[in-house]
């Protein structure tokens, strides 16, 4: 039974800031009863409105880089033979014999039909989409660095990002920085991503308790981000097989710092409509102080 996707997104400036430096994006496509989608939350960094720009560049670059994945396809996922080939981190992919195809066939079909596609095995599909997602995020980082180089006043601008690419029942989740993606399954909310923040490391190193994260003085410090002068970025990718009834929640620290995980869990469990749930999450974050911009993308999987 194919999954059907329902989503909502919302961003709010919060109670204490003048400008909203977050950005978000959602897009769902249905082909042959199969739903696919892209969901992104980015939290910008840098003064003089540069943060706003950075998060916007992140969202734009990633969404457009992934757009053609959502285009019409046959029932079995396929890969386009034309277009950019894998580069960068894809070294392992190139040496795996299972993933290499004889070049002659590829070139022959390329000549015959520019829209030719090739059916692929499942493990390759996972690898392929993960890699596409990773590349899209790397591209975003490069674009942000480039912007900083071209606009001196915005030098050093950067952004966090968490993104989910959903193809059928397969979710690919990426993370850089301290925005988060959670998975709600069987009524339980669990965090998928790991924050690249100092406080997360302090918890891991046993220097502080997890509860202390919420008011630790250094909780705003992250060690990985898009841009910030460094075009190279290490991206965490997680894959998750979705089931009917699951929900994915993407949010920036403005939500999760203000609304504890248990509160988020009960809101998502109680309010079925994604739009209402987003509204309620943001309302709760503001009630609890609204110290930072608040951005939420909520995605529900229902039986189609």
């Amino acid at each position, binding site marked *: 039974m194919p999954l059907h996707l329902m989503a909502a997104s919302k961003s709010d400036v919060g109670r204490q800031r003048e400008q909203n430096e977050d950005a978000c994006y959602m897009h769902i496509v249905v082909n042959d009863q199969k739903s696919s989608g892209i969901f992104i939350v980015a939290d910008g*960094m840098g003064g003089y409105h540069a943060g706003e720009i950075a998060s916007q560049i992140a969202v734009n670059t990633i969404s457009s880089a992934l757009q053609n994945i959502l285009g019409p396809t046959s029932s079995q996922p396929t890969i386009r033979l034309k277009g950019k080939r894998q580069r960068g981190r894809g070294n392992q992919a*190139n040496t795996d014999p299972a993933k290499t195809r004889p070049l002659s066939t*590829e070139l022959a079909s390329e000549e015959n039909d520019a829209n030719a596609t090739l059916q692929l095995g499942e493990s390759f599909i996972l690898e392929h989409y993960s890699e596409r997602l990773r590349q899209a995020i790397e591209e975003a980082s490069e674009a942000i660095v480039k912007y900083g180089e071209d606009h001196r006043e915005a030098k050093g601008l950067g952004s966090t990002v968490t993104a989910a690419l959903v193809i059928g029942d397969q979710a690919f989740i990426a993370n850089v920085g301290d925005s988060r993606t959670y998975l709600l399954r069987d009524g339980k909310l669990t965090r998928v991503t790991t924050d690249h923040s*100092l406080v997360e490391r302090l918890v891991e190193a046993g*220097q502080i308790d997890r509860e202390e994260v919420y008011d630790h003085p250094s909780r705003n410090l992250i060690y990985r*981000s898009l841009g910030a002068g460094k075009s190279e970025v290490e991206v965490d990718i997680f894959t998750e097989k979705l089931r009917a009834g699951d929900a994915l929640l993407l949010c920036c620290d403005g939500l999760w710092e203000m609304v504890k995980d248990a509160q988020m869990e009960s809101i998502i469990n109680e309010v079925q409509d994604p739009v209402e749930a987003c509204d309620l999450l943001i309302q709760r974050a503001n009630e609890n102080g609204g110290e930072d911009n608040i951005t939420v993308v909520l995605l529900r999987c229902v039986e189609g």
Partner: protein
Amino acid sequence: MALQIGDMLNGRYGRYRIVRRLGEGGMGSVYQAEDLAHPGVYWAVKELLDDSTASPEDVEWARDRFEAEIKLMRDEGLHHPRMPAYRDDFVQGQHRFLVMEYIPGTNLEERQERLHGPLPEREVLRWMIDICDVLDYLHRQKPPIIVRDLKPANIMITPDDEARLIDFGIARRYKPGQRTNTENLGTMTYASPEHLGRTQTDQRSDIYSLGATMYHLLTNHEPTPLETPFTGKMRQYQSMLSANTEAAVIQAMQIDPARRFQSAAQMRDALRQCLQLLDRPAQPSKAAPKAATTRGNGNAAPVVLPRGAAATVVTPAVRPAKPASAAPAPAASSMPQMDTICPHCGFVNRQGARFCAQDGTPLRPGLVPATPASAPGVGARSYTGYGAGTTPAARAAYPMQAATATSPSLAGAVTTAELSIQKANEAFLARQYQRVVHECEVAISQGRQTYDVYLLLGRALSEQGRQQEAAAAFAEAVRLRPTLEAVKLEGAAWQNSGQLNQAQIAYTRARQLDPQDAEVSYHLGQVCYDLRQFAQAEGEFEAALKLRPNYADAQIALGRVQAARGHWDAAAEAYQRAISMDPKSGTAYLELGNAQLALQRPRDAVRSFEQAAKLTPDSDVIQVALGMGWHAIGNRKKAKLALQRAQEINPGNAEAKRLLKQL
């Protein structure tokens, strides 16, 4: 208000003119300034900035820290050759300035960015041994001085390839308690758990930072904050890294300070051992650097004073607030022992050696640092690449300055040789290669027969097209220190001068130094190809592709090998592969077209040539090929157009002329 280039400063001991900005921190900047009384002598000027966006407490804090730094440098007699020396401090226009020894070179952050990859293990070890020396010195002060801000950007590599501890800019203090927007952790990546957490820092915090710095330099990956790397992690990024060195980094980066090296001296010993084992790979010793299992008590080898004459010191450092809680610095034993580390190149020689096995510098027992400019044994060098007749004139042009400081206020003054090296570096940046050659000759005549000078000389000669002389200079640099960089440059210079056999030897040596370097395989393949050793060339190109799977140039070269054998089908396939690796390669399309012409597929060939022309619009060679393609199809008009275009691009293209005539 930040200083501008050309601004003059009146200090207590001299006047200075700002030449350029060297670096910038949150609360201050560092400039290079020329000494007006001694033209050609440079100092580093550090300025505390007013930052209107900073809170008054932060400004206060930065000011206190700056004053403390000045006091340390000026009043407490700190001096170590691996730190900048104090020169002057003063107030001008309500701004506070500190003048220090100017240390030319590049910092390790810049080096890494330039290299885009892991730095060579041997060099990193050598540099870090140097840094351990200065840390040991600082930690032994009473109370100990903790640097806390140790990171690649704060380690400078001088043109003489020595490491120095520096501090550019004044860090902005992190404001606790106040909710600020998400920020980058930045250089806190290298900070110790206790620095980031809430326990007291001591000298072992610097050990952690040095380990984290090494991790970054050796892998080209930023360390994850507060994470001890697991065994094998570094070698995932750098498979050539020795297990010993990895083990040393892991020990330095322990979360629990009690499990790290307990002193800089202890870490230095372990690193020396790593270096030693690296130089003697023949004896697979299981003795990993275990020096650190004994706690606290530095059972260290005697202190070897690094070379470097006139420097006095000071540093970017902070004394811990409560010195009492800091663990006492372990006293290094002073057992006399023959100095086996070469004071000149850092090579670790066998015990009892009298001359350095690497560069022939005399090794002396005890702690006497060698004075490079006057070391007598160094004069006889086999470098013969170009005439030595220029040196007397050079000497006349640059009157000899005293090599040692003439007055206390001039401590750290630059010698003639150093000045020449500096001028040579500047001239190189300005692309005045003739001047570079001249200055290098002066430096060499003054006794600076160092690796860096020969390397620079080689580069300048190479830029001037004097490839054979360049090759000789690089060969000399290699003789002094066989680095991958120098050997590759030597190979390229021989190759460019047409001495293919010499080039082959150099590249083969480069491959021994780093079998994982795809470029070396590629160049070696090129040389073999030019020597018409096709089988060997093919092997090299394939090796290059294995090391770097999307190496389009190597793929094109593979095609050329096939073409040279007359295997046009295979050649065309290779070029097509190259195009799929790099769709923007005009060369690949050009070669593909040539192969297609040979295969009697002129229409395909024209398509390829057109694509090549689109990618490289101003190549006359491609236009000639295109003309030949159209001619093969029988389209004389288009053939003529292409050939005319080729002549427009390069009026001297004889082939275009000849073909046009034929048409």
